[in-house]
């Protein structure tokens, strides 16, 4: 499989050159980063050109890189304090700026070529705009419709040119985008039946978020680049 990936990678390099940047993979998968302005053109070529033939869009996935690489408990040096399970974590600072970090939101596309049996991953960052926005690929792959609606619903990323960008998984009238890293796991509101009003009512959530197992990142020499073959782009 990896030899065939290299063949494909060579073709992509030849065709797109600098416009597609290879993302190194630790498990032999082929992934590229593309600029959001180039996305439509590259995607169209990848779908329609006979050399590539990516006729199926398997998945569209949003990623929020806000807290990437941060841990809740330092493990590299000895600490005098343990990790208390009931402790409330430091609240994440809400990013209310007009502009986002350019590498905060990404949209990841998984492509599949049925005729050539290739898989390819494209990642594009949404840039600094608030709300984040990328061009829709619905016209290229019609199956993207609901996947993009899902990304919009969960991450608040807009898709320019999408025919019907509505919320899909969350409740009618839901506020916020739950899969953003600054959205609490417990949510902001809870519903209950209000006997006085005679209907279901929203109120602020009453449960405290608890972290049962701290998020730790340990330096593991087994995975260091010197000891392991890392496929570099």
């Amino acid at each position: 499989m990896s030899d065939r990936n290299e063949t494909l990678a060579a073709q992509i390099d030849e065709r797109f050159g600098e416009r597609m940047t290879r993302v190194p993979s630790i498990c032999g998968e082929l992934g590229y980063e593309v600029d959001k302005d180039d996305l439509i053109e590259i995607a169209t070529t990848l779908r329609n050109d006979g050399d590539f033939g990516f006729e199926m869009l398997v998945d569209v996935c949003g990623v929020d890189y806000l807290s990437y690489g941060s841990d809740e408990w330092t493990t590299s040096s000895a600490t005098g304090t343990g990790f208390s399970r009931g402790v409330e974590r430091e609240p994440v600072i809400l990013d209310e700026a007009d502009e986002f970090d350019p590498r905060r939101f990404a949209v990841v596309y998984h492509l599949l070529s049925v005729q050539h049996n290739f898989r390819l991953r494209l990642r594009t960052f949404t840039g600094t705009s608030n709300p984040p926005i990328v061009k829709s690929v619905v016209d290229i792959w019609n199956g993207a419709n609901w996947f993009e609606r899902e990304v919009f619903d969960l991450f608040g990323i807009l898709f320019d040119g999408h025919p019907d960008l509505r919320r899909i998984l969350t409740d009618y009238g839901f506020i916020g985008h739950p899969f953003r890293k600054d959205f609490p796991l417990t949510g902001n509101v809870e519903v209950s039946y209000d006997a006085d009003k005679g209907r279901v009512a929203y109120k602020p959530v009453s449960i405290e978020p608890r972290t049962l197992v701290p998020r730790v990142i340990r330096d593991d020499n087994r995975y260091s680049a010197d000891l392991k073959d890392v496929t570099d782009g």
Partner: protein
Amino acid sequence: MAEIQSYTMNFGPQHPAAHGVLRLVLEMEGEVIQKADPHVGLLHRGTEKLAESKPYNQSIGYMDRLDYVSMMCNEHGYVMAIEKLLGVTVPIRAQYIRVMFDEITRILNHLLWLGGHGLDIGAMTMFLYCFREREDLMDCYEAVSGTRMHATYYRPGGVYRDLPDTMPKYQYSKFRSNKDVDRLNSIREGSLLDFIEAFTDKFPGCVDEYETLLTDNRIWKQRTVNIAVVSPERALQLGFTGPMLRGSGVEWDLRKKQPYEVYDQLDFDIPVGSNGDCYDRYLVRIEEMRQSNRIVRQCVEWLRENSGPVMFDDYKVAAPSRVDMKGDMESLIHHFKLFTEGYCVPEGEAYAAIEHPKGEFGVYIVSDGANKPYRLKIRAPGFAHISAMSEMVEGHMLADVVAVIGTQDIVFGEVDR
């Protein structure tokens, strides 16, 4: 008489044929559907977000609850993605066990689909027949994992334990006659493999029975032939996978095209349809059950002859045995670390896909090197299928909506996640 005008009809979310909680807003012209707008998400639990707050192994149980009629296949996709990141090779015996249970799961799923689909469009008896066989397969789940549905049996690095030598048996009670209990227990005297082998002997006959009832049945054909025809081009364009894609005549099966575990060493065929209608998809799934039965049979034979470990032996990832823990300090430390903190997965991203009974089930993990996934994305086949609902039911009658929901094999656990 008043002129008939187009109107909007609400189907579900509580409707026996909606296969769970689907709300369909149908725009109708008389009894003909102009447009369908499925509202999903009523079962959205945020599995992906929950998984981001837990160590890797604690989310395996969530996977069972995605597509709750093909439990082990979901687990398989998830553990395969972790194994890809960790670079773990699974012992060969565990691979055979996984394949065997994947195929048992496929039969389980297709039996529920056949029963439900039949019930929806007028074949009541199918439901009873299918559940009879499902019961046996549930017993296999129970024997191997202790639970009938939510098994949590696959673990990164292998499976939780080796196949048991005994089957759980029925006990005498006032709810069943002793004669019945003896009859039920008579096929449960041997090991799990004996039980599964006995099942594979009788199952092709069961499929023949189903086919006698349906395949040439006039009513069944009237309800399915030429309903919701999808061309191969459209099927690809819409992201269809699994029987939905093969029903349209595209020969694509990950078990053959991108083999994982030991599928490349097993002998089986991939059925494809030709017209892309509900009837072809029915035929594809029926044949898949027969092929799955063949695979299970081959796995049973292999597993009888070969023994070996069923778990990767690196204690940094897989728990040491209970016995070792009692006497060996290092095992105890490993056990403690694994169950309090879990294991850290190297930084990177991986997408693992398996041929789930419903299509391509993919798990995409972004890891930043922590003991919890940074981002977990589950690619559920049913999500792509139901997004094409409007296109598939356009121009059909209201009663055909039920046939289309059936043929898509929708389960909301995975659509809504």
